[in-house]
């Protein structure tokens, strides 16, 4: 009996140890420590940082990038990349604005049409990658150009302004009076992504495809289907981000979101997802987005020039990735 007990405690202990070891192998822990450290430093050197209004502001600022980064995480986990999200965000946003202003559809339907459009674009990306076997970087680069062009064509190059208050509430309002709506949406998107990646077979397949596509295929995983799904999810999150941005700006801006894909990729890789796929965690991505957000907020408060901020961002990304690849060498 006592023997049995030791055995059980041993396995539980082993399990805990393995989990702890796993934790330190993951970059999330490192990024979490970096994030907390950064927050402490910011709080010490600037008394405006750790205030309710500033923190709410930061949270709202990061939400768009953080949501884009969710879809990007799915795609990068399969070993791909999605450069189109910034443009898709602008395109779906202008379509939503156009539906409300030019066609006169109620906001709810306008939003649904925009999200459906994002889904279709993601699906096309996925089909081209999975079936036509064109490299993801080419497919999504082309889609980036095409979506931007379509957004400009649709709006004639001008912003579509004057959106109804019921729509701008999404970007500017508060849920329960305190949580900014974009932050609430971000939280919901992350919870859903967490469930998909960690508690549904789909998630396991996505990791497996990025880990070893051929082994996954020989194990009966429908590789093409789940690759397409990853791009499709990225299209959906781009459209959700487009909805938030359009509503924050209260106008559909065809030139919005230029370069956002790169911030999303930065959040994903900072969060510990391997750029070659197969390894990473959705909450790592959230931490990555938060780190980038807090850093730029803190530097803003300190009055550091935006030019310097860009340089710093570059240095931090290289530093973090170099550290993690150096650590994994053994």
């Amino acid at each position: 009996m006592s023997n049995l007990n030791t055995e059980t405690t041993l396995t539980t202990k082993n399990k805990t140890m393995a989990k702890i070891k796993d934790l330190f192998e993951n970059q999330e822990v490192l990024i979490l420590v970096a994030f907390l450290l950064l927050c402490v430093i910011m709080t010490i050197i600037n008394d405006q940082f750790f205030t309710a209004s500033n923190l709410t502001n930061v949270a709202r600022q990061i939400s768009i990038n953080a949501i884009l980064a969710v879809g990007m995480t799915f795609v990068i986990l399969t070993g791909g990349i999605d450069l189109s999200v910034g443009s898709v965000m602008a395109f779906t946003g202008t379509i939503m604005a156009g539906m409300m202003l030019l066609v006169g559809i109620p906001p709810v339907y306008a939003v649904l049409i925009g999200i459906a459009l994002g889904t279709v674009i993601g699906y096309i990306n996925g089909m081209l990658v999975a079936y036509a076997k064109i490299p993801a970087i080419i497919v999504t680069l082309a889609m980036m150009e095409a979506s931007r062009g379509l957004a400009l064509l649709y709006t004639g190059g001008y912003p579509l302004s004057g959106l109804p208050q019921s729509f701008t509430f999404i970007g500017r309002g508060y849920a329960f009076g305190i949580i900014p709506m974009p932050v609430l949406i971000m939280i919901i998107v992350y919870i859903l992504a967490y469930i998909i990646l960690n508690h549904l077979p789909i998630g396991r397949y996505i990791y497996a495809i990025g880990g070893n596509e051929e082994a996954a295929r020989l194990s009966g995983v429908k590789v093409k289907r789940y690759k397409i799904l990853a791009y499709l999810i990225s299209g959906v999150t781009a459209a959700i981000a487009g909805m938030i941005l359009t509503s924050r700006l209260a106008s559909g801006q065809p030139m919005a979101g230029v370069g956002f894909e790169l911030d999303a990729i930065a959040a994903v890789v900072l969060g510990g997802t391997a750029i070659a796929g197969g390894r990473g965690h959705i909450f790592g991505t959230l931490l990555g987005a938060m780190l980038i957000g807090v850093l730029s907020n803190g530097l803003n408060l300190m009055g550091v020039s935006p030019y310097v901020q860009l340089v710093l961002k570059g240095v931090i990304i290289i530093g973090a990735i170099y550290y993690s690849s150096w650590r994994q060498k053994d």
Partner: protein
Amino acid sequence: MENILEIKNITREFPGVKALNDVSFNIRRGEIHALVGENGAGKSTLMKILSGVQDPSKGKIYLNGKEVVFKSPKDAQEVGISIIHQEFSLIPYLNGFENIFLGRELRKKNGLLDKKRMKTEAEKVMERLNANIDLSKPITLLSVANQQFIEIAKAIAIDTKVLIFDEPTASLTGKEIDKLFELIEMLKKSGVTIIYISHHLEEILAMCDRFTCLRDGEWVGTRSVEGCTKQDIVKMMVGREITNTYPDRTSWEKKKEEILLDVKKLTNSVVKDVSFSLKKGEILGIAGLVGAGRTETVRALIGADTTDEKEVYINGKRATIKSPTEALTHGIGLIPESRKTQGLILGMTVKNNITLPILNKISSKAGFLSRKKEESLVNKSIKDLLIKTPTMWQKVKHLSGGNQQKVVLAKWLNTECNILIFDEPTRGIDIGAKEEIYKLMRVLAEQGLSIIMISSELPEILGMSDRVLVMHKGKVISQLDVKETTSEEVMYYATGGVGK
């Protein structure tokens, strides 16, 4: 005749395997020396050591009586040892002379490339080789045979004394082979020593002076080709006693009648009109040399590769199998040849690898993965197959080869397939794990599982199978009953012998 190369007590160990064990022999100056042995006998490892790709764990190499130590292929080339690999090491979009001078480009005084001089120098080499190839064409536009000439020219241009050919005729046509032999003869006359690796014993008998035979990483003998027959060489290659690593046959010698799987006219770019059937509870061995189309056959069968023609019948009913997913739904699983690149997702845990094909079975009705079901199933597999791992959350890349193979096995056993294909099931794993896998295969067959086993190890084929399919150049050349055949006979067919 004096020795140019002395190989002394070379041993090379890999984790869990001794690829070479105390191998010693000499190569004489100016001879063509063949190296023969079954797949996995250690030929490639020895050549990698001679060409500086790998270091020996123990032992020494003497060139012209002086000890040489290679840290890289460049070191070996500098003292005059080069190798022509099966896969050429040419840069496809560079042209002939750029490839020949790769890494040691000639320059003008101002530092720019001296293309003119490189071209004329390269042409001189080609003249020596008696070959007429356009050196300003990119390599991709040349035929395989001409690419091989460029590769040889590259070696000759750096004044190679010992030239190693690794299966040089594998992808050449008859005429091209004759031309290559002429070239080799000419090289010999000009004083180059040749080491020639080939499965084609006729080639060796026709061209070589002496041969050395390796078996299981050990030296078996070095003999003059004169007076040798093909049978003599085959005997040396396979001559070991079949040891008792294979489970007893008696309990399993029941007649198997019921045909489960019928494959007809399987044809694609590699395999030609392959037909065979598999009975319930049978182990069907597929023997043949590397490149005979064995792996391609089973990959085509499960839909992992495309086919031009294929008819598959399961229990007499026609089945269409266009992808591994469909093969799985028909109860056919493939345990691939390479664990690391095809069998496993190395960065994933033991648990996640095992349950990958059956995630639907361990999900709740709502589609959520059931952690409880998953963990108990994986625990059972770890216990049943004696997988040595600290926990099920260990990444498989940290396990030994044998345990990795057991993880792949566990994955497929849990699918409850009734046909499992084992492609080289024991490659690169230690003898203990081998025996466990053999026992397991036998138990599974007794329980009614039908098994197709591809193996390059003849004792394994003979020790495990009921029937043997021998393949050569993409075709099934013979079907043998294991009770009535010998390893010599299997090897005879595997090397292309037709009739007797």
